[in-house]
């Protein structure tokens, strides 16, 4: 794997200013792209047509057997092996070197109960939220700074697209047929954040998922949407926490007795909390303690049967019902630039598995 990063907004355009164009035949490329559209493989955007040599380059990045099954969707009777995943990753525009990350992301995704259940078919139309940690971020040229939710960077853009194409093509989940999203969300199959570990005051996110600091790893859950909290107005960290809490609390997103949100904090907010002596757990506990509504507030939205208690009854008029109860329901991630105090509340569909998956590259045999 090379350490050269030529991706992203700053990448230089190839020099084609002189002489007859020596590049590939665009007419042939267009025919190949249209062929992929005609076969129904595309998510709407052009695909990279995949040849055997390109597939071989992908398969050469992993020790896994091309026939190994890496995920199954029992209800539709489909599964996906390493080879098919590689074809979809290549089609999505990934480089071969990204494939170990795609495999880790897909494994992490299939650990989500909601993904194995009906998530991809759901009217809620969720998207994977992919979080990347460790040295692989720099090695492959992930964006770890400003514009964390994209666009502009090839690994961040193509890896989640690869996952979406696997679901479409290998699992056969097509919109309006087995995929029944009412509205879906902007950015479905496009959400891949590389944590800003360098400016985070806390441990890398993958460590919360059980993978040691310094090891490349991917964590995935499903999200229904996200909303920003722009608070650059106060030096008081508790004011900022209250502001975030208000967004977490939004009634419209609440459909079950418990919910789950990822807090993707910008470095400025994270550092403000850390400077006040708060750990991730303290931020999580704040939300667990304070987020919720009274029975009456639920009733006012016609949701009196949402705050269901373990005994089967519902929160009474003045009874405060908490919507979060464990740290796992409030994953905390640090991403973006340290240039404004803008964080994101990411609404999770279901609940994060709580586990991260190490990125496993091909074993290199030393030559003597």
């Amino acid at each position, binding site marked *: 794997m090379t350490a050269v990063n030529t991706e992203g907004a700053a990448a230089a355009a190839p020099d084609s200013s002189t002489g007859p164009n020596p590049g590939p035949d665009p007419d042939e490329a267009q025919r190949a792209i249209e062929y*992929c559209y005609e076969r129904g493989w595309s998510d709407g955007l052009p695909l990279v047509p995949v040849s055997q040599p390109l597939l071989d380059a992908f398969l050469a990045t992993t020790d896994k057997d091309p026939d190994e099954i890496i995920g199954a969707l029992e*209800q539709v009777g489909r599964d996906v092996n390493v080879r*098919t995943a590689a074809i979809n990753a290549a089609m999505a525009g990934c480089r071969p070197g990204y494939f170990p990350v795609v495999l880790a992301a897909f494994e992490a995704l299939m650990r989500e109960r909601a993904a194995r*259940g*009906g998530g991809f*078919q759901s009217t809620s139309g969720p998207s994977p939220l992919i979080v990347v940690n460790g040295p692989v971020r720099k090695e492959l040229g992930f964006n770890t700074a400003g514009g964390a939710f994209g666009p502009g960077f090839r690994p961040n853009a193509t890896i989640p697209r690869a996952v979406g194409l696997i679901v479409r093509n290998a699992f056969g989940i097509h919109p309006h*047929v*087995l995929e*029944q999203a009412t509205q879906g969300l902007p950015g479905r199959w496009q959400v891949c954040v590389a944590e800003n570990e360098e400016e985070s005051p806390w441990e890398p996110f993958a460590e919360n998922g059980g993978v040691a600091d310094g090891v490349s790893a991917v964590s995935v859950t499903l999200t229904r949407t996200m909303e920003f909290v722009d608070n650059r107005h106060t030096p008081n960290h508790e004011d900022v926490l209250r502001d975030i809490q208000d967004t977490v609390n939004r009634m419209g997103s609440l459909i079950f007795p418990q919910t789950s949100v990822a807090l993707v904090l910008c470095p400025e907010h994270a550092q403000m909390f850390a400077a006040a002596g708060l750990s991730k757990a303290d931020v999580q506990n704040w939300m667990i303690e304070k987020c919720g509504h009274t029975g009456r507030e639920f009733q006012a939205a016609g949701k009196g049967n949402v705050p269901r208690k373990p005994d089967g009854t519902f929160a009474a008029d003045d009874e405060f019902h908490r919507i979060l109860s464990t740290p796992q329901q409030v994953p905390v991630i640090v991403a973006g630039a340290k240039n404004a105090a803008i964080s994101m509340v990411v609404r999770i569909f279901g609940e994060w598995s709580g586990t991260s998956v190490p990125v496993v590259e091909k074993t290199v045999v030393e030559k003597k």
Partner: protein
Amino acid sequence: MPNAILDPTGTVTTSTGTAKPAAPRAPRPASLDGKRVGLLINTKQNARPFLDEVGRLLEDRYGVTLTKRTKVNFAVPEPEDVIKELATDSDVVITGVGDCGSCSAAATADGVVLEAAGVPVAAIITDSFIPTADAMAALRGAPGYKYATTAHPVAVLTEDKVRERAAQVLDDVVALLVEPGKVAEPGKAEA
């Protein structure tokens, strides 16, 4: 000789699609008189009162006995042991209400699997999910599998309206469960 463009679906496709063995359809009784009816309630809002009312009407009309069961997970087909129990305990099964992407597909899938186990099934879905129910039936080897529909939505209906809907769909449900020929084409009757 140029390289071929590789197929990303992982399936061998032909112009007619992948051939699947046809799933068998259970033989129907001549009538529901005195039959054991299994209600498989998928936990979606209003599914229980809807199926309760369908069951009550069948008790009145045919003297059936009811067994009620809640789906383990509305989003996916029932596990094998539950299917076995349903097949043992019931002469016919009614399942619903499929009013979402995964649960409408799961209702059809349960239907196809139970049919193969010898139990006639009437799955009830809302009419917004006909494409996904049809796609799931085809995936399960039962293209054209018949189910009953009711207008979407069901979840927000009042109790009275739920009962009204149950009464409206009853003839279609019965037609799906007995020897065909006596009642109008099932799965199509909902206006």
